[in-house]
């Protein structure tokens, strides 16, 4: 991997709810290389969006974070909000799921770009602002004839292209895209993914692509991190991980994914846990078909396996930490259909 743009170390993000404390991100470490596309994949409620926002220091009221997010030699965790704001845009960009809610309906496309550029690059002339905006929009397929239109005059796919252009016009080093294609149709989704996976070539931007769709990761990403219940279950080269998953969760999730190649339907018993009171030890053990006695008893230890892949699962050792009899299949009550999703 190229030198990391961002290094996340032991990041924790907790937030309070009336029902208790949600441990959305629980000791996560992750590197994103320069110009790299890293896919962060997981089911709803696994903490992937919170992790994406945590990296940018964008956390909801009442959230607490701890650990390190190193960017340009500085730790973003605990940085003053004012300083963080200065980095957001020119260094760190974010694209959301629903583009309409992020564009101001009363502002022309032109005004969105003018505002963004004037805030961060004060030295540009009017002509330069226009040229930069049109060039970036053009690369996203938005013609200059539509520069003075309002957001409602564009289709959903066009709005998402505008949002991407708006993030890229400042040439950020890292872009976090949180389910950027979820509300789009399948053909438009593929168009947008094509644009995103080309970012490194056209802009040199690294991308953290957050999605629930494994197919998207397989097609658009270099590396993938699979997240389950606030932790990274497995991380490595996307081809390796999907070709030969090391963590049972990755394997089961791949088998559950319904694609045109799927030969039979498969699902994972149970449902993803809530993060207020997650299962102890390995959080996947109640749903894991490969669970051993140790999995319900001790926290798994991160292991490195071939090709620099990281996996958080007792199946990969270390042997010396597994107590006697810990390798036996986990005895448990059948998960009742009642517990099923």
């Amino acid at each position, binding site marked *: 991997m190229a030198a990391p743009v961002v290094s996340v170390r032991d990041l924790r993000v907790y937030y309070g709810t009336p029902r208790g404390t949600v441990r959305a991100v629980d000791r996560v470490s992750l590197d994103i290389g320069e110009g790299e596309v890293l896919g962060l994949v997981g*089911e*709803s409620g696994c903490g992937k969006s919170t992790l994406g926002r945590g990296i940018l220091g964008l956390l909801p009221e009442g959230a607490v974070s701890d650990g390190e997010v190193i960017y340009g030699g500085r730790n973003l965790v605990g940085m003053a909000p004012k300083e963080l704001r200065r980095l957001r845009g020119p260094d760190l960009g974010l694209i959301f799921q629903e583009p309409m809610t992020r564009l101001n309906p009363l502002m022309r496309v032109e005004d969105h770009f003018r505002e963004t550029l004037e805030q961060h690059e004060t030295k540009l002339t009017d002509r330069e602002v*226009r*040229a930069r905006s*049109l*060039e970036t*929009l*053009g*690369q996203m*397929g*938005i*013609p*200059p*004839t*539509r520069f003075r239109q309002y957001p409602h005059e564009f*289709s*959903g796919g*066009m709005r998402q292209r505008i949002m991407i252009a708006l993030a890229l016009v400042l040439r950020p080093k890292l872009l976090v895209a949180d389910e950027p294609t979820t509300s789009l*149709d*399948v*053909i*438009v*989704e*593929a*168009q947008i*993914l*094509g644009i995103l*996976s080309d970012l490194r070539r056209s802009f040199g931007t690294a991308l953290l692509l957050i999605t*629930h*769709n494994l*197919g*998207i990761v*397989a*097609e*658009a990403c270099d590396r993938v991190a699979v997240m389950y219940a606030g932790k990274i279950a497995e991380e490595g080269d*996307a*081809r*390796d*991980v*999907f070709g030969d998953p090391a963590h049972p969760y990755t394997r*089961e*999730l*791949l088998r*559950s*994914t*319904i*694609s*045109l190649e*799927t030969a039979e*339907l*498969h*699902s*994972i018993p149970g*449902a*993803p846990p809530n993060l207020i009171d997650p299962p102890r030890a390995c959080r996947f053990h109640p749903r894991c078909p490969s669970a051993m006695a140790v999995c319900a008893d001790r926290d798994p230890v991160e292991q490195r396996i071939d090709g620099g892949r990281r996996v958080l699962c007792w199946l990969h050792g270390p042997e010396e930490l597994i107590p006697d009899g810990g390798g036996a299949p986990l005895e448990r009550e059948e998960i*009742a*259909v*009642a517990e*099923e*999703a």
Partner: protein
Amino acid sequence: MGEAADPHDGPDVLVSIRGLKTYYSIRGSFFARLLGREAGHVRAVDDVSLDLRRGEVLGLVGESGSGKTTLGRTILGLVSASEGSVEFEGREITRMSERQLRALRREMQIVFQDPHASLNPAMTVAQLVEHPLQIHGIGTRNERHTRVAETLGIVGLSPPEQFMDKYPSDLSGGQKQRVVIARAIILNPVLLVADEPVSMLDMSVRAKILELMLYLRSELNLTYLYITHDLATAKFFCDRIAILYLGRVVEIGPSESIYADPKHPYTKALLRAIPDPDPRRTVPRDLPPGEVPDAARPPLGCSFHPRCPLAFEVCGWETRDLRDLLETRWALQAQELYEAEQSVMGDLTALDEPAAHVRLKAGSGHSGAEIVALLDSIRQASPDAPFWKGVKRINAEGDHADVEWHEPIAPRPLDHGTTTVECHLYDEDALAEAERRRAETAPVAVER
């Protein structure tokens, strides 16, 4: 699709749809409404004919704006049809009163996409599932209670006592969808319309809900109309598939044929676009540009022609395609080049009015011949673009240029093996007509 084309008219047809149109009128500005002016129509469902056979699962597949949801709702009488007929077990429902429809709804139920939004958060599971029985005044309190418990068991929420007093907020997404399904089947319906029933659910639980729906089909003899944008889940669930585009059925046939041998270029594109977790795959690049157009102003001829890589002379080329062509070019050009070309083209609003002929006035200080020269150079750059097949004549006169396209032919549904497809590529007459016009006009006449 064609009435004569379907040999399955007979006792096994549950719902028969013929020439169905559902148009929504657009509410114009306040003043337009005050003056009683119509602002136009959205043709959400535009002349659809198909049969739903008893016991089958028919998939209605399309992108947003294809009219799939409106079609489903029109069949249930939730939206009123503008034209055409929908017969449910021989009874015409498009002209039924609300009272008649209410009685009929015991037999036809719907499951919506979002289980969170379909369940009243203030009601318990037992209340929610019992509700339809109360509305239709069925059974005593005890009988209803028993029926609720049975139904919860059928949808896999067992033991039922564990769920009856819970509120929707206590349940997972999949469990909520099971409650929604329990509520839909408690009246013993014949037809279940399922509108994207799994698309809001996590991957690891989608299969369970699909399996439940397949189980219910055999257990309760249900007929399904499965509305989805997802051809991958449809493959597992449907006996037959209808592909919708802009309110029309562009292809319909048995699932095996649709997946193994798709005919319509749109069906092919949809299949290619589905993301696949195969690590050897990369993002498909050869996909149609653009998005589903506005159903209030559909393209001339075949609605898919502006995005179709195989479109030819008679597919409906027109003014707005020229605007797209120019704008796509300008998006990638340096500002100076774009500005120079735009000043030649002048005001493009003439291209917003759908027509197969347009008179363009050159920008001030420019001549019609310059427009012709510009268009010619665009054609030289990519002479094989389908757009140029549609152009019949371009000529200049003073400060104007006239562009004329071949007269569009509306595509018609034609049987092709086991599928019925609405595409000129499979229509001998259209192909012959295109051939004739090509001979007449080739090469594209450029008169200066």
